[in-house]
């Protein structure tokens, strides 16, 4: 049985889109573009050279430094969430309009100003878009 003391950690940032959820983190250290970088139907990352290439976004708490690329990307994020292939929540280092607007219209929680280097893929996290917090509650054994 692992010690629980080391697992709980609270990262404080800025709430961008309200809402709370709990899920498994999918973490990238590279910016992500929704238009062209993610398959629009399946929600698989297809961006060449991306550290998340081949991963499904479905139901994950997607953590990445910031978005880039076409603003139509906001509609791609909306479309993925509506289809059920999208992430549950977004955690960024720096919010950019494409991702912010996408999260608003998709109605998923979003937090930025988080040091995402503290989160690893597989961690169980709670995202609070109202308080602007990400809580690591498990390390996904």
């Amino acid at each position, binding site marked *: 049985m692992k010690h629980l003391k080391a697992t709980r950690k609270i990262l404080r940032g800025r709430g961008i889109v309200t809402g709370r959820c709990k899920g498994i983190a999918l973490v990238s250290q590279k910016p992500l573009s929704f238009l062209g970088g993610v398959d629009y139907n399946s929600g698989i990352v297809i961006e060449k050279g991306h550290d998340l290439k081949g991963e499904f976004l479905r139901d994950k708490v997607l953590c990445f430094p910031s978005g880039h690329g076409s603003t139509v990307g906001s*509609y791609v994020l909306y479309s993925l969430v509506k289809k059920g292939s999208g992430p549950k929540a977004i955690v960024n280092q720096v919010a950019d309009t494409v991702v912010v607007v996408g999260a608003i*219209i998709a109605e998923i929680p979003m937090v930025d100003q988080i040091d995402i280097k503290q989160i690893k893929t597989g961690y169980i996290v709670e995202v609070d878009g109202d308080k602007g917090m990400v809580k690591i509650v498990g390390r996904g054994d």
Partner: protein
Amino acid sequence: MKILVRLGDLFGATRLIPIQSTHLSGVSYKHLGDAAIDFLDELASKGGRAQTPSSLNPSSLDQEILVKRYSKDRVAKQQHIIELYKKMLIQPTLTCTPYYVQKPKPTQHLAWSESSAVVYANSVLKAWTNREGAPSALAAALVGKTPNYGIHQPQNRQPNVLIKLETKLSAETDYGALGIHLGKFLKEKIPALEGLRGSDDELKQLGAAMASSGMTARFHREAPSKKEKLETMTVEAKDVEETTSNLCTTDQKPDLVFIGCPHCSINEVKSVARALEGKKVRKGAELWVCTSRHVKEKAKNYVNIIERAGGRVLCDTCVLVTWVKDLGVDTLLTNSAKTAFYAPTLNEVDAILRPLSQCLKTVCRS
């Protein structure tokens, strides 16, 4: 409204300000997809209507040629998107060059998306627009206002990088390659290009390219008075040459020669016509000249010359937003650095970048 207020809060706006016009991207079915149609449908049915003059970016097809080459389903979905925008009282101008249709005046506040149009409006026409997203531009259209952050505040309009051009720019492709090169380094910063000359058409290429590889919304043509305090970057001939060379992904013979990214000005249509006068496009070769309906109408005589030579002047669309691969195109020859930059990923085709004269020489019978 929610979108505008949240964006405004995030980026330090103090209030919403009225705008003279909006321009919307997110029109081509190729990029928009099905679920966004539901989103637009909901907005239109709930009574969303434009409160300010609003125009649209290119669609995935024109009404003469491509409309006959795609499946009924694809065509129907594309037309449906345009109908939804029309229902919201947004003008179906279907061009990335709304400034040719309705020229903004200096110091007008706008809410435009389409990065190439944003940079042109800010840098050449001296209007003020942020680099809007497709949904935020739509939100601004429906409310008639935008939050006063970014370029709407004077302190954000000043250059923060000085670019020293130590090379001569001759062809329009040099301007485009320069733009691609700069965009990568600048990201969001605003450059002052000391000593930059160039026609409006050449600056249009520069801006479109810069906005593609980077996130900038504006460039200046003169160095500011306090230039010693600015971060400096030098551009030499080899930077432009290397960028041009890297934008060419193949040396295969092109399947399609494409002129018109951004959409051609009357002047550019004239240049193509002049070069094609008395010549014929080779059998099996295809030449597209893309422009707005507005320009096509005004440049009728030049359009006739191009079409008599065997070229096609298409409105409402362009290569990047349509399914060229489905039309059998694997290699593209263009004079647009923006197209050469995007086509390999957005269209999965190879691209070659050459100035207009060379593009037309390639496509004509010797």
